[in-house]
């Protein structure tokens, strides 16, 4: 870990056209303070990768409502009507990926693998345009690895070294996106002295910055 970062410094890292992965499941475990800063910075043309589209006033939904998102890659968009509206108006590109596939694609990128060979989505719209690989007479869709410029990690308890563990169900995609982005910023719920080495979920070399202070809950 490089250290603690202020909200202002964090905003200097943001750029139009970035790809950003955001942790959380229906906003449980989403770092709302970091999202608010991205809204304030008002950067545009973002590719957002998140389990879902959040809610209009919560999670990545705030970025959608603020028209900052060019493309959303998610498994579920039903909880944020704005996503459907902008999509049907042709103002937002949406790529739907099955939840397990989305997680594996991100993991594959973080682990230096080229892609994922999954049976999920065979004989559905999901396989369109994708290569089908047959292994031992079974078919699999080749889903490409998925990385991004920036990971916004939430739901964590951090220690002074930058190690993370996660609070209850807030874990979800957070440890996965922390492996797959050029820059990883975490807004922890609290910071403790040291996490027992056996209980660390995201070891500190995966983390670049912790954002603390007013955004902590």
């Amino acid at each position: 870990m490089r250290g603690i970062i202020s909200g202002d410094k964090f905003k200097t890292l943001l750029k139009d056209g970035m790809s950003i992965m955001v942790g959380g499941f229906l906003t449980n475990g989403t770092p709302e303070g970091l999202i608010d800063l991205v809204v304030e910075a008002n950067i545009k043309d973002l590719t957002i990768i998140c389990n879902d589209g959040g809610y209009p006033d919560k999670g990545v939904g705030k970025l959608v409502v603020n028209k900052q998102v060019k493309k959303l890659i998610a498994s579920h968009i039903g909880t944020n009507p704005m996503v459907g509206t902008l999509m049907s108006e042709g103002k937002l590109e949406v790529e739907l990926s099955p939840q397990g596939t989305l997680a594996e694609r991100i993991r594959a990128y973080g682990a230096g693998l080229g892609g994922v060979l999954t049976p999920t989505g065979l004989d559905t719209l999901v396989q369109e345009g994708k290569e089908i690989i047959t292994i031992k007479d079974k078919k699999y869709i080749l889903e490409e690895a998925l990385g991004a410029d920036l990971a916004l990690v939430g739901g964590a308890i951090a220690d002074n070294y930058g190690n993370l563990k996660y609070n209850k169900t807030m874990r979800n995609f957070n440890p996965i996106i922390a492996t797959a982005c050029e820059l990883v910023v975490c807004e922890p719920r609290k910071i403790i002295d040291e996490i027992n080495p056996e209980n660390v979920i995201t070891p500190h070399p995966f983390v670049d910055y912790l954002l603390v202070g007013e955004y902590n809950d």
Partner: protein
Amino acid sequence: MTDKEIIASRIALELNDGDLVNLGIGIPTLVANYVPKEKTVTFQAENGIIGLGGYVEGENEIVNAGGMGASILEGGAFIDTITSFTFIRGGHIAVTVLGALEVDQEGSLASWIIPGKKVPGMGGAMDLVTGAKKVIIATRHTNRGVPKILKKCRLPLTAAHQVNLIVTEMAVMKVEEDGLHLLEIHPSYTLDEIVKATEAELIINDVLPMKGVNL
């Protein structure tokens, strides 16, 4: 019993001691209420719980796969999405119970998109239907009289040929190699009524009254 209660209580009989089970949103969620006390069934929520407990109003640190406040039972575990779908895709889930827009006699399911109308997305459903050892569909038999159990799904599929059992308020149907077998019918309906409410061709031998139903 309401239609939903009929469906949920019948499906509960399909769960075995020691099973790891994932219940979808809606009617499937109700199945948990009918598991007999003597059976130990562990519920999974795909957002990251092994040992899901009941709803907890106002809880926001533990949520279920519908994003509602929930609880974890003793002996449970919080897991990340990768581990959750390792369970799901890897065949470690004994039974998943899911809803349907359409389901057909070949065991194919449509549940995630009505093109031009509604695109909620597939969430974890495609992985669940593909990976669970046994896939049970919990659905009303018709949508206001329009059959939901079809010869072939017309909506885009969630998965092809993965459904094992279909339970409605009228009947229990099993997908086999040779087609859709009508196994049980609810005593409130005649065989004729059920056949008329079903577009799929039903293979009918030895039909029993629906198990677990209190009239």
